[in-house]
């Protein structure tokens, strides 16, 4: 077991701060807006029910209409936030890792080396499929908390990305003798890729 102890100049390392993030697919904010729109429409419709049930005192009937109004305001607000956060998200590839940025106010950058990816999974729900979108999830060792999930990639990009990363992972793992057994880390056959019916 020999350790390299390379004299690395602090400035010469590839830097996390120099990432140029690509935004998610253009359809992603639209999909988020529609998804939130549907959910909030259902909520607002449900909030109208009390007003319909109460028939007698007209004042109360009118006051209860405040509920859906409140729902409308909240719906617009939260949908706008979700769309904004969808626009803020971004990803980028380097030679050896993938980086993912998210968060409007609480910014987060995640960097995952290809070599650490155990396997990857593409999923797309009905709404995502309508917009030609997919989610890509990377599984790593060490528990669910460090699995990386990237929403809002176009279907083509998602499958290309998975193909590329699994290939790189297999290569680098072959370099230093496959850690977790080859069968699991090998790139999946694109024809057999599990496109789950619901975003799992």
């Amino acid at each position: 077991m020999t350790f390299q102890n390379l004299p690395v100049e602090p400035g010469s390392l590839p830097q996390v701060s120099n990432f140029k993030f690509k935004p998610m697919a253009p359809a992603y904010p639209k999909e988020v807006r529609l998804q939130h729109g549907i959910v909030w429409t259902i909520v607002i419709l449900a909030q109208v029910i009390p007003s319909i049930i109460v028939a007698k005192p007209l004042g109360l009937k009118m006051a209860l209409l405040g509920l859906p109004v409140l729902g409308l305001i909240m719906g617009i607000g939260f949908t706008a936030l979700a769309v904004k956060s969808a626009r803020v998200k971004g990803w980028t590839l380097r030679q050896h890792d993938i980086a993912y940025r998210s968060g409007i106010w609480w910014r987060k950058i995640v960097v995952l080396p290809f070599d650490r990816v155990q396997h990857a999974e593409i999923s797309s729900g009905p709404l995502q499929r309508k917009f030609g979108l997919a989610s890509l999830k990377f599984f790593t060792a060490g528990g669910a908390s460090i699995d990386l999930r990237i929403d809002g990639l176009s279907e083509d990009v998602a499958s290309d990305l998975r193909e590329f990363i699994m290939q790189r992972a297999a290569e680098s793992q072959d370099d230093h003798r496959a850690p977790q057994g080859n069968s699991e880390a090998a790139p999946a056959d694109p024809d057999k890729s599990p496109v789950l019916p619901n975003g799992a």
Partner: protein
Amino acid sequence: MEPEAKEPASAHRWRRTSPVAVVFYVLKFARHMVTDGLPAVAPAVAVFATADGWMKTAGIGALSALALIGAVGAILSYLRFRFRFEGQQLLVRRGVIKREQLNVDFDRIQDVAIDEPFYARPFGLAMLKLDTAGSAGKEITLPGIPLANARAMRNEIISVATRQPMPETVDAEEPSDHLLTRSNADIARYGLTANGLLWVAIVFGAFVSAVDDDQWLGPAVNWLTSALNLDGVTSAIVRLGAPGAVLLVLLGLLVAGLLLSLFSILGALWKYADYRLSVDGNTYHRRSGLVSKQEQTLKRAKIQAAVWRQNVVAYWLSRINLQLRLVSAGEAANAQGMPIGQPVFLVPALTDDEAHDMSAEFLPELDTRSLQLSQINRRRYMSRNITLAWMPFIAAASFAAYFLNPLAAPAVFLAGLALATGCVYLRWKRYGYGTVNAYGCLREGFFGYKTTLFPLRKLQRADLRQSPSQRRAGLANLTVHLASHSITMPYMDLNEARRFADLALHQAESSEEGWF
């Protein structure tokens, strides 16, 4: 887990374990009943125990039925359990009601342990315990095979997994180079420190997030409290009056503390008495145990991190417990909703010098003595956390002012502020980070500390997180994910956090060696 999927051509080579394994299954059943079944049936047992007549008879009947089920189940388990080695695979068929066949590749096995339970030692038998990578709860136990065979199997599995032939000498009784022994006094100290965490938990329950791996204490304490007859205590308090009651309570706490320490020491001795650590090339062996002997084996390459733990008691005793952390759980375990285990190889009760030396042994070329740790931003970390820690005191002060005396409010405010500041300051002071050679070091703690030392190349993922105020102040939280556990270093200088992440990523991506 595909039952009967691969029908082997030479099924006659399937082997059984020794019949002593029946004892193993009986004990397993009994333990299962006590830990999982007892809380549910305890009321029924209480009723049966106090009742007489037909109820008592029914109770005894139910108990003997249960015992019969256990015995028959154990015999069937023994009969059903078969294993064989095929190339570099271990095949196991087991199960009474649900039958399963497991195919385990040697190179997926991350931990091999040999237990010599007290009932098997007279027969020269041992249990071979295999822990497969990243699947907590999928341990495989071969109960009741001759000790020499168990050792040979272990050596073969390890030599396959490391792709290095084992020296022949390891089959001998004394397998390898002696590295470290712990006297039973050392182990007793370890027992006290394991208890120390419990003490802290009792006093500062809310502040402590993690209790050490001494789950055996819980049931013992429960049993103790139920076994004490509290009626006598209450009547004594009534007789003695207020000062006597205080004295009695203090005395009770003292006795409880002594008892807990005693349990803790006994528990530590049970598992770690005659602790002996030896090394053989890249493989470590631990052998210890008071009545039942345990042998645990660890390959150096599997170590994801070394963690120094020192709590208050350990600080008083000037001892450090060194934990070697392995892969804790993979997605396979999570997909099946299994509890995430924390595989740990413990080197207990080290002195300061020993801790430095042992760290360099497990993580070669790591010079912990020359390690300089930087601290996180004090002003920002403290101002934010004092605000949070003070909240309950503000609530308490308002409460006191309203119900007791308006004058009490400022006193409670100030006391709260002082206490919150003190606690947050302690917490701040413990945070530290640094790198030396190709290793990273992250320290956190409160009264004691927990220092994680890890090869930078074993990083799994790095996260940088910034709140709006941290962005303005140029600070960031860095989370380092290892395959064993994750550590967050809050309120680092942004450039320092980036530098740490860049260095670790560079090591992880450029290293010729794997992480596993």
